[in-house]
C-alpha cells in the first residue's frame, strides 16, 4: 500500500491526538504568560512539557506527511531550547512569537482536516527565528529544598498483580496522591525487574498495610539518596503520558449511527404501542396490566439508553472557550483597552457537533466586544467606569437547552448609528429607541456594518449575519440586551439534542402537525370572540396586555374546523411573544426528527418531518421562524400605522 493510503488510515487518531496536545499547549502557554507577566523565570516543568508536546507533534505530523505542521513544530521546539536551561524569563516578544506559531500550527492541522491547502507558514517561521525568547538570567525565587525521602517503596510487577489492577501507572498515581515521588527507577534483581520509588509523605499504618497487601514493599528510607547521575526522574510531578487509558476515541459517525438506531427503536416502540392499543380489548385484564408494565419499563429504558448515547457526544463548553483568552490578548494589545475576561460554566456540556459550529460565531462576538464595544482605559475613566473592561462568557444548561452568554460592560450599541446605516441601506426604520429584537435583526442583516473601514480584527459586515444563520441552522435562538454607556449582552440558546425531541401534536382541520416542546412557553386557550383585528393581524387580550395571534390554518392554507375555542402555543418571550393557534392539541409525544434535506421541500416554518407510528409523514413546525416572520410583518404594520 502506498504511504499516503497507509497514513490515511490514521488521520482520525492523528487529529484526536493533535487536539489533546493543542489543548495542553494552550494551557501551558497561559502558565508561561502568567510567569512572564510577573517577570519571573519560566517554570521549568511547563517548558519541558511544552517542548515535549511540540516534539511529539513533530513526530506524528511527519509520519502522516503533514510537512507544514512538522516544520512548525520543529521551529517551535528549537525556539524553546534556550529556555530549558532554566533561570531565564520569557520575553513578551517571545511569548507572542510562540502564540503566533501555535496559532499557525492549529490552522495547518485544521486545513488538513478540512482538506484545504495549508496556509503559508514562512512569515511565522521567520518570526520565530527572529524573536529572542529569553531575557537576561533572572534571579529565581529561593526554591525551597525538596522534602527528604522518608520511604523506599518497591514494586515488582507480575501478571497476578496486573489482574488486580496493580501496575506501575496505578502505583505511581497512588503515591502521587499520598505525597511526592522524588525518584523512580527500574531495578534488576537477579533476572527480574522491580521499580524503586523514593517517596516523601505521611503514611499511616492502615495505608502501609493496604499497600503491602497489594504487593508493594514499604520501608523507611535508609539515608537521603544522593543525586544520582543515573537518576531517572525530574523532581515532583510527572506529566501523565498520553497512554493506554480508560478513554476510548470514538468516530463521530459511529455515534450518529447509534443515535439513528435508537431513533428507529423509538419509532418501533410507538408502533408497538399502537398495535397493543388495538388488541387491548381482547386481552384479560391481568395480562394487560403485565403488558402495560413491561412497555412502560421499556420506554424508560429506551429513554435512558438515548440519554446515555447523547452523553457520549457531549464535551465541555470550555473547549470553545479555550481560544478566547488568546484572542482577547491579541486585540487588547493593539487597541489600548484593558479587558478582564470572566469565563463561567466551562464544564457545561454541549454536543460536539454544536461546538464545532459555534466556535467561529462565539469568537466573532468576542472580537466585536473587545474591538468595538469596550472603551479605552482613558474613555472608561472619564466615564466613571473602572479602567478595566469586563467581558463575560457564561455557559449553562437548562433541561434540553444550552445557554451561551457573551456580555460586556462597554459602550452599548449605538442605536442612532444603526438606524442611520439601515436607512442608508434603504430599510425603513423607526427612530430609536428600537425594540431589541428589531435591533438584532438589523445588525445581523447581510451586508450591514456601521464601520466603513475594513476592520481586520472584526472582519467585514458578514460576521453577524453568519452568527445569526448558524444559530438558526442549529434550531437555536439569539437575543440581545444593550444599554447605551453600560454594555451589551448576547444570549444564544441551543437545543442540546438534534435528533429526538419531545413534541406536542396538534391538529388544524384534517392536518396533523408536530411542535417541538422546547420552543413552547405555554399552551393557552383563546376565545375566538375576544380576538381583535389590527390591520391584517389578529391580537388577543392576554394577562393585561395583548398577544399577536397567528392562525396556523391560514399559514398553511388549511381550513380550520369551527370550534368553540382555539388552543394556542405561546412562543417567544416578552415583546416577542406570539400565540400560534390550532384547532386541537392531541397530546405529547417523543418524536424522531427527520430533516427535509431536499431544496424542493425547504420552506419557511417547516423544520422537518416525523413518523408518528403509522408510516405517514407529519410535518414538524418551526414556530419561532413562523413567529419571527409574522413578528417582522406585524412590526412593519405597526410602524406604518404610527
Amino acid at each position, binding site marked *: 500500500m502506498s504511504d499516503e493510503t497507509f497514513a490515511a488510515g490514521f488521520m482520525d487518531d492523528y487529529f*484526536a491526538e493533535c487536539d489533546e496536545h493543542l489543548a495542553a499547549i494552550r494551557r501551558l502557554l497561559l502558565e508561561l504568560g502568567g510567569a512572564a507577566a510577573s517577570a519571573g523565570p519560566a517554570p521549568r516543568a511547563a517548558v519541558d512539557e511544552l517542548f515535549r508536546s511540540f516534539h511529539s507533534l513533530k513526530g506524528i505530523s511527519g*509520519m502522516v506527511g503533514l510537512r507544514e505542521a512538522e516544520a512548525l513544530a520543529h521551529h517551535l521546539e528549537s525556539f524553546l531550547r534556550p529556555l530549558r536551561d532554566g533561570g531565564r524569563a520569557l520575553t513578551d516578544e517571545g511569548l507572542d512569537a510562540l502564540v503566533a506559531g501555535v496559532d499557525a500550527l492549529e490552522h495547518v492541522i485544521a486545513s488538513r482536516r478540512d482538506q484545504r491547502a495549508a496556509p503559508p507558514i514562512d512569515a511565522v517561521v521567520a518570526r520565530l527565528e527572529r524573536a529572542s525568547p529569553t531575557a537576561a538570567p533572572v534571579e529565581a525565587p529561593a526554591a525551597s529544598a525538596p522534602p527528604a525521602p522518608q520511604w523506599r517503596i518497591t514494586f515488582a510487577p507480575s501478571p497476578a498483580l496486573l489482574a488486580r489492577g496493580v501496575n506501575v*501507572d496505578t502505583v505511581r498515581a497512588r503515591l502521587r496522591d499520598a505525597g511526592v515521588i522524588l525518584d*523512580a527507577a*527500574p531495578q534488576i534483581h537477579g533476572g527480574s525487574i522491580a*521499580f524503586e520509588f523514593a517517596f516523601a509523605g505521611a503514611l499511616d499504618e492502615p495505608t502501609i498495610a493496604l499497600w503491602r497487601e497489594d504487593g508493594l514493599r514499604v520501608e523507611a528510607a535508609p539515608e537521603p539518596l544522593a543525586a544520582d547521575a543515573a537518576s531517572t526522574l525530574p523532581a515532583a510531578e510527572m506529566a501523565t503520558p498520553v*497512554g*493506554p487509558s480508560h478513554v476510548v476515541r470514538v468516530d463521530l459517525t459511529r455515534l450518529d449511527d447509534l443515535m439513528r438506531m435508537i431513533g428507529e427503536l423509538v419509532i418501533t416502540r410507538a408502533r408497538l404501542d399502537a398495535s397493543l392499543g388495538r388488541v387491548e380489548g381482547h386481552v384479560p385484564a391481568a395480562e394487560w396490566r403485565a403488558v402495560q408494565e413491561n412497555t412502560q419499563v421499556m420506554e424508560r429504558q429506551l429513554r435512558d439508553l438515548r440519554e446515555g448515547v447523547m452523553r457520549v457526544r457531549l464535551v465541555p463548553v470550555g473547549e470553545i472557550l479555550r481560544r478566547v483568552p488568546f484572542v482577547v490578548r491579541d486585540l487588547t494589545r493593539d487597541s489600548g483597552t484593558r479587558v478582564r475576561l470572566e469565563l463561567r460554566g466551562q464544564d457545561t456540556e454541549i454536543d460536539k457537533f454544536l461546538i464545532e459550529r459555534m466556535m467561529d460565531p462565539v469568537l466573532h462576538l468576542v472580537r466585536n466586544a473587545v474591538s468595538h464595544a469596550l472603551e479605552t482605559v482613558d474613555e472608561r475613566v472619564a466615564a466613571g467606569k473602572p479602567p478595566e473592561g469586563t467581558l463575560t462568557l457564561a455557559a449553562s444548561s437548562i433541561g434540553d437547552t444550552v445557554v451561551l452568554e457573551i456580555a460586556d460592560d462597554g459602550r452599548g450599541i449605538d442605536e442612532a448609528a444603526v438606524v442611520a446605516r439601515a436607512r442608508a441601506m434603504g430599510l425603513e426604520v423607526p427612530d430609536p429607541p428600537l425594540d431589541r429584537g428589531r435591533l438584532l435583526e438589523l445588525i445581523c442583516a447581510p451586508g450591514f456594518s456601521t464601520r466603513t473601514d475594513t476592520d481586520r480584527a472584526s472582519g467585514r459586515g458578514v460576521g453577524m449575519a453568519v452568527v445569526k444563520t448558524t444559530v438558526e441552522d442549529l434550531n437555536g435562538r439569539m437575543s440581545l440586551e444593550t444599554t447605551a454607556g453600560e454594555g451589551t449582552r448576547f444570549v444564544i440558546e441551543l437545543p442540546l439534542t438534534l435528533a429526538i425531541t419531545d413534541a406536542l401534536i396538534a391538529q388544524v382541520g384534517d392536518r396533523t402537525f408536530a411542535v417541538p416542546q422546547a420552543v413552547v412557553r405555554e399552551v393557552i386557550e383563546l376565545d375566538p370572540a375576544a380576538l381583535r383585528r389590527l390591520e391584517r393581524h389578529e391580537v388577543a387580550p392576554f394577562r393585561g396586555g395583548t398577544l399577536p395571534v397567528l392562525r396556523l390554518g391560514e399559514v398553511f392554507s388549511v381550513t380550520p374546523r369551527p370550534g368553540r375555542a382555539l388552543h394556542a402555543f405561546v412562543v417567544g418571550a416578552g415583546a416577542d411573544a406570539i400565540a400560534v393557534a390550532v384547532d386541537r392539541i392531541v397530546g405529547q409525544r417523543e418524536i424522531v426528527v427527520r430533516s427535509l434535506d431536499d431544496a424542493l421541500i425547504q420552506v419557511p416554518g417547516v423544520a422537518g418531518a416525523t413518523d408518528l407510528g403509522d408510516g405517514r409523514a407529519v410535518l414538524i413546525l418551526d414556530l419561532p421562524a413562523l413567529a419571527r416572520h409574522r413578528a417582522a410583518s406585524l412590526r412593519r404594520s405597526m410602524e406604518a400605522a404610527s
Partner: protein
Amino acid sequence: MHRTLVVDDSPTMRRMVMASLREVCSGGFAEAASGLEACEQLALGPVSLMVLDLNMPDMHGLEVLAFVRRHPTLKTLPVIVLTTRGDAESRTAALGAGASVYMTKPFTPQALAAQVRELVAQP
C-alpha cells in the same frame, strides 16, 4: 516469535508502528506509553523485539535502553530506536547505548518492516 513491545507516548505513533509490523511480528504486540511502563511490560512476559521512542515523559528512551542492556537476559533483546532527531551525535549516543538499529521519523512502513525482518532473521 514472542511479543513485540512498542514504546511511544503517542498513541497514533504506536498504532502506526503496529500496523507497519503486523505481517512481520507474528507474536503480537504489547504497548507502553512511558519508560516505566516499558520496563513493566518487559517484566510481565517474554518480548522478542522492542521498538523504542526516545522522547518520553518519565524516563528518556536511552535510559530504558541502558537498563535493558544491564539485564542478564534482556541485554541481547533487539531494540529499534525511533527518534525525530537525525544528527550524528544522537545516532552515536543511541548506538553507543546499545541500540540495534536507529531510525528517524518520519519513516515509511516498508522501511520499518524491512529493518525488523533483517533484525529477527539474525541468529
